């Protein structure tokens, strides 16, 4: 029963999720809207709580058992509690009752977000440029005719997207655009078809209970 009930739920709601695309009648659409607007929102709220509780438990356990790098778990928990208090009691821009400005220094959630999270995220993403450079330098080799073609195409694209390209040749940006529009799209479209069909097949297997790995382990 422990495994059959989730499988039954998946079967019922899987089929119910497909039906609205074909039946426009208001009775069914209202039911579908209620599922998505109300039921799903409540589920999502609980999923957030599940994630937060799990996170706290993992780190509390780490501190309790003094596992490797347990000290950083304190950083996480303290940061979580402080930002939770500031956000819930201070409001997004300090409009609630907790004061979020001391001696001219603002620490409401919007300020913290814009001045801590945003630069941190941008920095991590910026690392990609360097990793791309080292990966390209290491791996882009003209080992064969196909890889030489790939290399030539990559040069055309890399130069073609720059304002400089117009000065080299007026046809270069158009040629780069053509490579992106035609051969690139043709290849990606082929992969997309395969992925879409694979997705449908896997979804069908999950709905019919053939694929059960998401339940965790085997029966």
């Amino acid at each position: 029963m422990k495994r059959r009930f989730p499988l039954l739920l998946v079967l019922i709601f899987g089929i119910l999720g497909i039906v609205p695309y074909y039946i426009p009648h208001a009775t069914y659409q209202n039911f579908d809207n209620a599922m998505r607007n109300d039921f799903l929102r409540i589920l999502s709220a609980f999923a957030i709580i599940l994630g937060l509780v799990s996170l706290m438990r993992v780190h509390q356990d780490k501190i309790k058992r003094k596992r490797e790098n347990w000290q950083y778990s304190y950083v996480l928990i303290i940061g979580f509690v402080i930002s939770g208090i500031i956000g819930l009691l201070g409001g997004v821009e300090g409009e609630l009752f907790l004061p979020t400005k001391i001696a001219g220094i603002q620490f409401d959630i919007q300020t913290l977000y814009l001045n801590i999270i945003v630069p941190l995220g941008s920095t991590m993403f910026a690392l990609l440029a360097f990793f791309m450079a080292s990966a390209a330098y290491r791996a882009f080799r003209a080992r064969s005719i196909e890889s030489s073609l790939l290399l030539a195409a990559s040069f055309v694209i890399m130069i073609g997207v720059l304002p400089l390209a117009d000065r080299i040749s007026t046809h270069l940006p158009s040629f780069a655009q053509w490579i992106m529009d035609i051969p690139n799209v043709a290849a990606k479209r082929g992969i997309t078809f395969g992925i879409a069909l694979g997705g449908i097949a896997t979804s069908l297997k999950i709905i019919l209970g053939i694929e059960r790995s998401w339940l965790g382990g085997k029966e």
Partner: protein
Amino acid sequence: MPLIILFIFALAPPTGVRAYDTPDDGGGSITVEWQISSDDAMIEGYEIYRSEEGTDYTLAGYVGRGRNRYEDETEDNTQYTYQVAAIINSEKGFSEPTAPTASKPQLFDRGATILLIGMFVFCAIILYFINQARRGKKLFIRKITGLDAVDEAVGRATEMGRPILYCMGIGLVDYIATIASFNILGEIAKKTGQYETPLIVPTSDPVVYTVAREIVKESYATIGRPDLFDTDKVYFVTDSQFAYAAAVDGVMLREKPAANFFIGYFKAESLIMAETGASTGAIQIAGTDQITQLPFFVTACDFTLIGEELYAASAYISKEPLLLGAIKGEDLGKIVILSALAVASIIGLLTKFPILSLFR
């Protein structure tokens, strides 16, 4: 001057006005269409008037000039008639009234017919092959080099006495790539269990962590080695994308795994992890259905499973008949789509038949 001319000659109303129940909807809507006024370039727009069950006309809506369609909200099974007026300042040119029309809900969206047929055909194909597999028919799948290298990767790690890192990406538990990754994780856990090679599985979602932990535990139990399961090795890190990438990089630089598996749903962090792994000298096998990340994995990893090779991986490794049957069904589905594309392309090129409208 044009306004003066309009005043002298009276505003031309829209013509050919017709009202009909909006098709393929849940009711509550009537569509009003008309041919635009010959004075369209000079007018402000069109007002749509509605009369309910023979009562006086009231204003129902307004559209700007150049537009010839309006969908009105109505009550089902009530008769309405419409008039459309071209307006400029206070001058209005009224059309002839339409015939009475009522809206009602439809039970089936005819526009989705092709989609429904396609869905049934594809599902039937898959179920047919699953049935064939259940009856014991041998189904062939072509060689997938990346999956053949799994044994080599596990063997290498065992010889070097170093762990294996299995990274499932940042997908949630309902992502197809994550589910495919669960299958592969189970098989790799069994192989590593047989050789007693440590398996490290950092995850980025609490629910995925829970499922991954159960899968690894179950895999070790299946091969008779439940004692090998270590809760410290399968753990939840963070759901923040780049924080997760930083954590995985840290594991790779400290633990120096001999083999890295990147199987699942990845976004921009893919290259950060793959390139760091390449710098440690590990053999790397990647698989994702994210088209945008494939070039990065192909560049930085030794083997890459592209798109649906990832979905086929669980069938390939486990050789389970039901899974193989689904793969065969997908392949035939692709042949059906390609054939339809080829036929439609030829028809579209050689004739004037509006073949594309069938697919919209």
